[in-house]
């Protein structure tokens, strides 16, 4: 009797309503981030400080930027398997040419964004799978990075070092940057009219085309955005690490995909969330090492713990969405 009534209460409008679940689902990335922060605060209260956040979230900014780059590609129902090596390539250019010959370095970086735009056009015009094209490009970027910087080295331009070492009052720089990046991407993709068209191209490309929008232009725009955010990611990374290495970005390909999905994005249908993606990247960056170090998890198992965290968050999400539908 008691259990039955308890069951009924849970199903009463307020808690059980679809709206609530939808809200919960939207909030899930933020909730996972909060849970990880609480865990860190509980394990090591001193980490929750200006200095602590600066250290813990240091690498979150390049990851967040790479995640947004991946998100733009996923918006158009494509996948970029080359973003990691692209970030590495940009890092190598930043640590060498951009310092020694700023103008030439800048031209190379703009040119590499142009290559991304070209890839978007190629994928659309020849109707070829982006997975394979970007797979091939991942070798190209890696090869160029190795040619440029056969051994780890180089150093970041001074202005970039100064920028990434800024200490704004009260709120640490990584958080300030994350908020700015998230808002810019959110407003651009979710609240602008062309942003809606871009997302629509992932949802129903035929309808978008019949409405008079050029699918070629949409794909080129999405890949150009991915290229721009990839360049920013590589530069931010070098601003933090101060020197480069041809393999420095390799892990970012899978991290960026995981970040988009953690942030509530989906592989098809143009359903993405820029704010969610940034939160997903922060969650991954925090879960990656600070949390595991505080939990005294041996290095052997840190990668595994990362996988486990991913699975738990996604399991929670699917639990909520299944009830929703």
């Amino acid at each position: 009797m008691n259990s039955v009534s308890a069951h009924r209460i849970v199903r009463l409008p307020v808690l059980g309503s679809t709206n609530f679940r939808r809200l919960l689902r939207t909030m899930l990335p933020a909730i996972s981030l909060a849970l990880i922060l609480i865990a860190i605060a509980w394990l090591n209260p001193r980490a929750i400080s200006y200095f602590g956040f600066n250290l813990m979230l240091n690498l979150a900014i390049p990851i967040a930027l790479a995640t947004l780059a991946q998100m733009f590609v996923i918006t158009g129902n494509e996948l970029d398997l080359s973003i990691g090596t692209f970030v590495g390539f940009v890092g190598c250019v930043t640590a060498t040419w951009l310092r020694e010959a700023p103008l030439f370095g800048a031209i190379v970086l703009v040119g590499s964004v142009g290559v991304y735009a070209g890839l978007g056009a190629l994928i659309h015009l020849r109707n070829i799978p982006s997975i394979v094209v970007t797979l091939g490009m991942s070798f190209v970027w890696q090869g160029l990075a190795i040619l440029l910087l056969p051994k780890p080295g180089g150093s970041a331009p001074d202005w970039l070092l100064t920028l990434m070492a800024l200490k704004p009052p009260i709120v640490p720089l990584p958080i300030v940057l994350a908020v700015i990046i998230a808002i810019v991407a959110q407003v651009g993709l979710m609240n602008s009219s062309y942003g809606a068209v871009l997302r629509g191209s992932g949802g129903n490309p035929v309808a978008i085309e019949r409405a008079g929008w050029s699918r070629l232009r949409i794909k080129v725009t999405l890949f150009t955005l991915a290229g721009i955010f990839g360049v920013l990611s590589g530069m931010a990374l070098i601003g933090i690490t101060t020197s480069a290495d041809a393999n420095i970005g390799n892990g970012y390909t899978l991290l960026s995909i995981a970040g988009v999905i953690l942030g509530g994005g989906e592989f098809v249908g143009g359903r993405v969330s820029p704010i969610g993606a940034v939160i997903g990247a922060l969650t991954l960056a925090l879960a990656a090492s600070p949390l595991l170090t505080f939990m005294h998890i041996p290095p052997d198992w840190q990668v595994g713990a990362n996988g486990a965290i991913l699975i738990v968050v996604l399991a929670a999400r699917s639990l909520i969405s299944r009830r929703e539908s």
Partner: protein
Amino acid sequence: MALARNLLAQPWIWSFLGALLVWLAAVTFTGGYGAGGMITAALSLAVFTVIVGVGQMFVITLGPGNVDLSLPANIGLASAVAMKVMDGSDIRIALGLAAALACGMAIGAANYLLIWALRIPPIIATLSASFIIQSIDISYGRGLQIKPPPGFANFTNLQIHNVPVLAIITALFAVGASVALRSMIYGRSVSAIGQNSRAAWLAGIPVEKIRFFTYTLSGTLGGLNGALLAGYFRGANVDIGNEYLLASIAVVVIGGTSVAGGKANVPGIWGAALFLVLLLTMLNTFGVSAGIRLVLTGLIIVGVITAAGGPKVLR
């Protein structure tokens, strides 16, 4: 003429033409020297890509989003398990192979369980699983330096008239996979699910069962590959499977299988695997540096896929 046109219409022909072209380029460069040796070497290395490529092909054919990213970690763990169970003794070879197969099978089944129970996209499920497997492998295989049993190492390197025995067996396996794909209920079901999983379900195909079997098959082939690689390279290693993440996907797609699912092609996997290995051989004979080799490999992959073009849109 009709035959030629018919051949050119086959999606797999391009990968073989590509392989032939890079081989000819390499042979021309060396002035004919080592032409046969190159093919022997290419066959022995292509075998490993073909084995995982076939598993990956069935997975990719299940439809958009289906892909097995856990293969590298799977191969690494299975290679360690095989070497540990074989323990360098010839009489334990079968036992070690069975253990590696079981290990791969368990990983494949676990992948599917994640996808099915948690409704996670396969890319993320197999990626997360691979993180966990990698950790298991690192802690299990720490300091592991067991050599394969001499009998097993010799078998994986065995050649008859310069043709690797493994290549012959793998060719027969590919024929089997091709028959399974074209004429068996399993293969037809995989294609049907890839074309339209809802329609397949309405037609009475046990969709989830077929998906379960496919992920388990891919995992099992990964396990087999791990054991064979450890035999061929004389030792297990955490990183032994790393290159097969990209390679397994690349051979499937270059070989003419549709990334959108529903349309698979087995012969193309052999062509694409030979193409990738011979491409590397060619660039090595040219004596280019590692950086240029990577750039050229990438550009050629993009070039091939651009030339072959995508599927013609019917709708």
